[in-house]
């Protein structure tokens, strides 16, 4: 990759107009972000903030980016997944609302659909590399890759060397080491300086939050972090309502089978599994749940679902959805015993819930690609299973992931967290924090009007009776929504 600093890099600027139209539609469905723009239009709380974002470069993310800039921030952006960029959204962000493809006036965005791993980490590095040798003052992360690059870079600079890849290291890790090795020789103190400048990171997702807590407990975390993932208005929306929307959407787009009357197995009854089971039941499938946790299993039973082991039902069900966050959930052997043309898909974060490698290794198996993200795997005896999105998140691969309204909840939390960390840095010592409950409640409040919700207001006497302020927060921190 060139060492030259580019203003941005996207697939095709001519897609900007299409992207701008979709952004305009999404803005209407993202009332929380638009309310934040209006509320902070004068105060400009992020004025002076240099935010590097690493988050799926989609239409919804474009509304997030332009919200951050609308309230004062400078922003550089990369996607956090090699496949998730919507090229028209990236183009529109690069061109900006006031620019043209010939005269782009947007923000520096480095993202396109179908990056190689080398390209992906180059993009991340570009987003973290600010003009005039500056670094970001804030990180906005999804999965923790930007945070990882800063931390590992600073760590190796302290050590004076980047280690060699070990046997068993993944291809991706070798790429990361390569990026940092080149950086160390060209700018030996670059990441140390960046780590010192960053006031904090706001992290979007479970995986990244997990990394942050590990770093915090190992004592290696360099700056404070806000765990956005565990805001109620983020996790419930993303996990439950988002998947409830997009699971059935993905199955329909991929297969167009009638779901009513079918037997559907949902592996896992956490928030994602609950949303999946509800959406399949809403289509009048007969839903069977598998669980390892007795509490979640009992919840499923009380909600009227049959709870079985996958072994019990593997040969009688029509649709299988894994939603566990664990791995090795649906094995190749189980897939070989499914009904002819059973549908198998995953909605968990990683692509290891369904044993795709094992399936490909079944003797005599062949794969027929029906259409993108829909493959029929034919066993030697002639019967087949239909696997969606090669075992990756089917709601993203076969549909368009979470709808704008869901992302408005997530991203309004992100903006709140950025404002908190940037303007009240001293209130957040080194460590991993969750957003205070009054901000969680505020995010919810900002979405009520769009739904025509009329909220009842506590009287002073009622508030005193239950011991909460009239304006909230209304629940103790341990409350389970």
């Amino acid at each position, binding site marked *: 990759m060139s060492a030259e600093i580019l203003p941005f890099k996207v697939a095709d600027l001519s897609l900007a107009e299409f992207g701008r139209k979709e952004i305009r539609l999404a803005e209407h469905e993202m009332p929380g972000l638009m309310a934040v723009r209006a509320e902070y239009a004068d105060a400009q709380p992020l004025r002076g903030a240099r935010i590097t974002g690493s988050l799926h470069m989609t239409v919804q993310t474009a509304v997030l980016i332009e919200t951050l800039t609308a309230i004062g921030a400078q922003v550089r952006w990369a996607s956090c997944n090699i496949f998730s960029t919507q090229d028209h959204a990236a183009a529109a962000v690069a061109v900006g609302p006031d620019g043209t493809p010939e005269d782009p006036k947007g923000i520096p965005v480095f993202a396109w659909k179908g990056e190689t791993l080398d390209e992906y980490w180059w993009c991340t590095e570009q987003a973290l590399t600010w003009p005039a040798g500056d670094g970001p003052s804030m990180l906005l992360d999804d999965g923790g890759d930007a945070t990882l690059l800063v931390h590992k870079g600073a760590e190796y600079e302290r050590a004076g060397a980047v280690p060699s890849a070990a046997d068993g290291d993944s291809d991706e890790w070798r790429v990361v080491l390569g990026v940092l090795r080149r950086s160390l020789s060209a700018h030996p103190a670059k990441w140390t300086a960046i780590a010192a400048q960053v006031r904090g990171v706001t992290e979007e997702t479970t995986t990244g939050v997990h990394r942050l807590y590990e770093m915090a407990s190992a004592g290696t975390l360099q700056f404070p972090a806000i765990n956005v993932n565990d805001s109620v208005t983020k996790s419930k929306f993303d996990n439950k309502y988002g998947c409830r929307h997009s699971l059935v959407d993905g199955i329909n787009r991929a297969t167009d089978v*009638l779901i*009513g*009357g079918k037997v559907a197995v949902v592996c896992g009854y956490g928030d994602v599994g609950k949303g999946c089971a509800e959406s399949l*039941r809403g*289509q*009048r*499938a*007969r*839903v069977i749940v598998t669980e390892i946790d007795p509490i979640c299993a*009992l919840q499923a*039973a*009380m*909600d*009227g*679902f*049959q709870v079985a082991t996958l072994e019990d039902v593997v040969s009688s069900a029509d649709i299988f959805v894994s939603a566990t966050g664990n791995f090795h959930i649906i094995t190749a052997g189980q897939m070989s015993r499914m009904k002819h043309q059973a549908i198998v898909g995953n909605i968990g974060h990683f692509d290891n819930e369904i044993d795709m490698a094992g399936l490909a290794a079944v003797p005599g198996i062949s794969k027929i690609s029906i259409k993108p993200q829909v493959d029929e795997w034919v066993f030697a005896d002639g019967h087949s299973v239909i696997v969606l999105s090669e075992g990756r998140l089917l709601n993203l691969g076969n549909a368009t992931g979470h709808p704008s309204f869901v992302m408005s909840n997530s991203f309004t939390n992100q903006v709140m967290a950025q404002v908190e960390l940037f303007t009240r840095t001293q209130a957040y010592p080194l460590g991993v924090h969750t957003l205070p409950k009054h901000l969680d409640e505020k995010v919810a409040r900002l979405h009520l009007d769009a739904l025509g919700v009329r909220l009842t207001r506590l009287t002073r006497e009622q508030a005193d009776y239950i011991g909460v302020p009239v304006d909230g927060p209304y629940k103790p921190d341990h409350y389970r929504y």
Partner: protein
Amino acid sequence: MGQAEPAAGPPRAAGPLSDIADPGLAAAGLARIGWAERAMPVLGRIRAGFEAEQPFAGLTVAACLHVTAETGALVNVLRAGGALVHLAASNPLSTQDDVAAALAACPGGTVSARSGADRKTYYEHIHRALDCAPALVIDDGCDLVTTLHAERPELLAGVLGGCESTMTGVTRLRRMAAAGALAFPMAAANASETRRMLDNRFGTGQSAIDGVIRATNTLLAGKVVVVAGFGSAGTGIAERARGLGSRVIVTETDPVRALDAVLQGYLVLPMAAAAPLGEVFITATGSRAVIAPAHLAVMRDGAILANAGHFDVEIDVPGLGELAVAVHPEVRPHADEYVLTDGRRLILLAEGRVVNLVAAEGHPAAVMDLSFAAQALVLAWLAHDHAGLAPGVHDVPAAIDAKIASLMLASLGTEIDELTVAQRDYLDSWRYGC
């Protein structure tokens, strides 16, 4: 309402006096009927019309109905329209003695009904109602009409027609008509669209579940509930059991209804396969021995058996008795425990009779409102138009259905659109394609 002094009402019918459990309960019964009438706005609107039009002036009605507060409201409406109504109970277990006393105390006919009456008394009561030589009949299960044909043929010539409330009764009537045995026109009041919707699906659906809960206090969430029959009543029961968190299994004999159940997401199994899985069984088929000894023999310990169908033959109760080594009656009110040889216990509710009436209070008054509104309007139609109707089973005219629905919508405060002239022309014409 229904409290007029005897002197102010029409003259008492000649013929038998009432046979009721306790005349002293009349005041309580009047209050209960009054409560029901408040929840029956459709019938109230019809009553206002009848008082003016007197569609039954001079006519005698023999009615065999569940003697409940809602029936009391119907009787009052018919009496207000000029009828003499002689009422017998259609089920000894469902009779509310206070209602019987209240109706007996008011002018305009007699009541023959005692709760818990035995089989012999039950038929005696039907004969007492027939003694009035009715011009119109109202039946609930067809026992009155079959008794009339089989044992009182001398009265047939005087009967103008009647209406039947239940699917079970209509099935019997159609068999009678097919055999050429039915001597007068009978309207299938239960077959109206409004009735099927409200009474079977929403009324039985709610009250059958209510009966099971009252009789057992069992938590339905997480339970496997087997619903036998996926007609209107079975559909309603299955929907409500699902709503309470049960896992519902449906059994059917009709492939169309079974397919509907499958596409609604229910597991459909033969009863032989469902029997070992179920924890609560509710029959709603109109058939007999749907739960047979072979099924009972493989059920889980503690399984609950309830029938929401009209007759007590859907669960083979004698067969259950033969399987059992011990019976503990009334372990809770309306719940009898049958102990099998290996110690398993099966809980039979309401002796296998219609659980929503025995263990709960039957349909909510709002449902009965619609059902009885149909009967009142159908009976008025028969009184007026009987001459044009051949002996046999007749459907409720669509106009009556529409009128009932309109009255109920009005009582619910719901307004709907009216077709424009242009829309009506479009719908009526074969010339317009699109």
